[in-house]
């Protein structure tokens, strides 16, 4: 498979009469975009589009999703099985606006998996998103059945965000990209002989699938990952809209759809492909909660790896806590099968740093990368602008925030300052590979 992504570097996003992209400026007809998105889904009852730029004294909360604006040149939908009909992902031509993202924001209501982004100040370092121009889609919906639930599917706004990313991406359709990235994944059984001496490397992805009720988990071609067993996929499929993020899991441990589209660890494996290793693809697993489901997935990952002739693996999980059991089990079963592993995940060592970092440990895990600690406390001053609703942090059970604590008070204070756990930074531990955090003995 060969995936070409024609990139356009966005220097600023502004509103104007007509949609256009010129000299690095992406112009959006705001009303037309709102009319389109509300026209596509009657459950969106109000919508605004707000631009947040790197360095702005702006706090965005509750953040539900981030997506890179893109379009497919062959007219295929951007997220098959989600935004349109099913069709294969993984090869063909895409165009993408770099340096920006669609950021889906609840206008009033948050949920467990939603997070916080600070665009400027001390809080900016906590997420990758502060480096991008955030095209915030701030909305209200009529999804009354989940209005006061801690777990929300956020279906209308998430699907709206995916449509919006494609709507914006189409602005680039007839333009000449500044630069083209190419990802070539040759059929594993038909590789050139000079690769024969290189070790075969696969990456095991464990996307979020813990919710037994459908509608909250990550989707593969629109299919809920909870009703899924591991399979072999091309890394180019992951980069080309095969996966969308879900609405469950504490925010800092999530992989947003933008992260699937740009999965840094996959890109680093491509950078070494044909040089120090032979990249033989992705074993896509999941993170179900029942023990037999965990064991079944681990067994299938192991056997796919063995039968493909994989020599080495990277294993990475979208989550912490219960999913650590899958993360550790998968690494152990591969090591036992003679396939050495590197694991990439975050840790949960508690606010005092003294807790066991993963819920289960095994001495066979000898090569681990740590991308952050969900339990660190962040205390930050008010921002001049809030996009969304700060009160959601106190009211809606967002992970890592609270409405009452006898010592710390509430997370979103009346003066606009906040105190919360790392858990609540949107994708803040960037387990997908963006993270520049590690863990050390202090």
């Amino acid at each position, binding site marked *: 498979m060969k995936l070409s992504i024609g990139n356009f570097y966005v220097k600023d996003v502004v509103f104007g009469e007509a949609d256009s992209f010129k000299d690095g400026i992406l112009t959006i007809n705001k009303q037309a975009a709102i009319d389109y998105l509300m026209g596509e889904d009657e459950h969106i009852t109000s919508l605004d589009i707000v631009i947040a730029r790197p360095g702005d004294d702006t706090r965005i909360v509750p953040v539900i999703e981030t997506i890179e604006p893109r379009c497919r040149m062959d007219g295929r939908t951007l997220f098959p099985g989600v935004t349109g009909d099913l069709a294969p992902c993984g090869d063909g031509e895409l165009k993408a606006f770099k340096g920006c993202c669609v950021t889906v924001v609840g206008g009033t209501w948050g949920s467990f998996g939603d997070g916080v982004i600070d665009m400027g100040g001390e809080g900016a370092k906590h997420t990758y998103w502060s480096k991008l121009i955030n095209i915030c889609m701030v909305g209200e919906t009529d999804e009354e059945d989940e209005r006061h639930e801690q777990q929300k599917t956020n279906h209308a706004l998430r699907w709206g965000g995916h449509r919006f990313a494609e709507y914006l991406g189409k602005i680039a359709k007839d333009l000449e990209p500044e630069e083209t990235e190419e990802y070539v994944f040759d059929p594993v059984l038909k590789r050139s002989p000079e690769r024969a001496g290189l070790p075969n490397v696969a990456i095991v992805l464990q996307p979020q699938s813990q919710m037994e009720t459908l509608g909250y988990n990550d989707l593969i071609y629109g299919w809920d990952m909870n009703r899924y067993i591991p399979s072999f996929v091309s890394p180019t499929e992951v980069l080309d809209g095969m996966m969308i993020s879900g609405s469950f899991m504490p925010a800092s441990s999530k992989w947003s759809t933008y992260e699937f589209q740009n999965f840094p660890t996959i890109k*680093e494996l491509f950078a070494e492909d044909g040089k120090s290793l032979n990249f033989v693809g992705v074993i896509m697993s999941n993170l179900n909660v029942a023990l037999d489901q965990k064991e079944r997935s681990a067994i299938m990952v192991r056997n796919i790896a063995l039968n493909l002739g994989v*020599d080495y693996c990277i294993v990475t999980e979208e989550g912490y806590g219960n999913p650590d059991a899958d993360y550790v089990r998968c690494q152990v079963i591969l090591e036992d099968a003679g396939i050495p592993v590197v694991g990439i995940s975050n840790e949960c060592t508690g606010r005092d740093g003294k807790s066991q970092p993963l819920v289960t440990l095994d001495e066979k*895990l000898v090569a681990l990368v740590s991308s952050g*600690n969900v339990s660190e406390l962040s205390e930050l001053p008010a921002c001049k602008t809030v996009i969304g609703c700060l009160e959601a942090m106190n009211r809606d059970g967002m992970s890592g925030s609270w409405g009452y604590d006898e010592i710390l008070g509430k997370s979103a204070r009346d003066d606009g300052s906040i105190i919360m756990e790392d858990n609540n930074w949107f994708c803040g531990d960037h387990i997908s590979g963006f993270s520049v955090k590690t863990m050390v*003995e202090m």
Partner: protein
Amino acid sequence: MKNVILYLNQFFGGVGGEDKADQEPYIVEGAIGPGLAFNAALKDAQITHTVVCGDNFMGSNTDEAVRRIMEMLKDKPMDFFIAGPAFQAGRYTVACGNICKAVMEQLGVPAVTSMNEETPGVNMFKKDMIIFKGGNSAAKMRKDVGTICKYVNKVLAGEPTGGADAEGYFPRGIRHELFLEDKRENTAAYRGVQMLIKKMNKLPYQTELVIPKKDVVPIAPAVKDLSKAVIAMLNTGGIVPVDNPDRIQSASATRWGRYDISKMDRLAKGEFKTIHAGFDPAAANEDPNVIMPIDAMRAYEKEGKIGRLHPWFYTTVGTGTTEAEASRMAKEIIPFLQEDHVDAVIMIST
């Protein structure tokens, strides 16, 4: 200018050697001995006072020595407290640990010390405080003082510190996140792939999360002929004679006891009880045999199912007890079992 107070033993305090180790604690203004090296290395801070105490006095009268020193310190302005460096002097390392712990807990002032890894102070105190990895003799004075001051200067200036490895102190079992410089080579993606390449090529690499080694004891082979076997009974459920003669602690135990059952068919209520703090004791106090089933074992003995019961049972408390203490206690118990040619033990936990 920030105020730092230094603790030294009788030798480094200039009182004298081993013959002066009973020196009672006293405090002087300014820096003496190693304090001069500290003053040279500290930025915007100085040693305002020095506490001196003999190692013997501190070792044999710890509570009293600590009490007196806290009395001396409580009115003094103090931004930081440093003890040592103690190098490889065993009692001095323990003294430094005890005094730093008291300063932090009672006065709320940050305190650090330095000692060689071969000393008892490291294992006793490394979880409680920052102990810099020190040299094995006073020849390393300048280096060890430099390491301490590099860290103290950062803390006093409100600058971030780099963690145990970077600063040169023993890991305390406290893990926190650290932001690296924002560049591709520092991303988790790059670190992960490069670690894999090193692992593939058998090159050295450093895992970012070291999994502690588990001390797994293999399962013993089955007893060949139970009808001839000598069986001993042990428990971590805290079953002791009602007056707890060995003063075994109710949690985080460091003590154990053994109790004669040669003339008993069962443990009688009122003669034995549990002192374990980790569960509701009502059932065990009503019938101690539910934890230490001497009654059932005597029955097996009479039936000929086992050869005979070892005439003592052994007790400690499991809750909060460290692996290291448990392992030491086992080593102390084992000779008694070997002496009676015990073939198997039943270890009862709660």
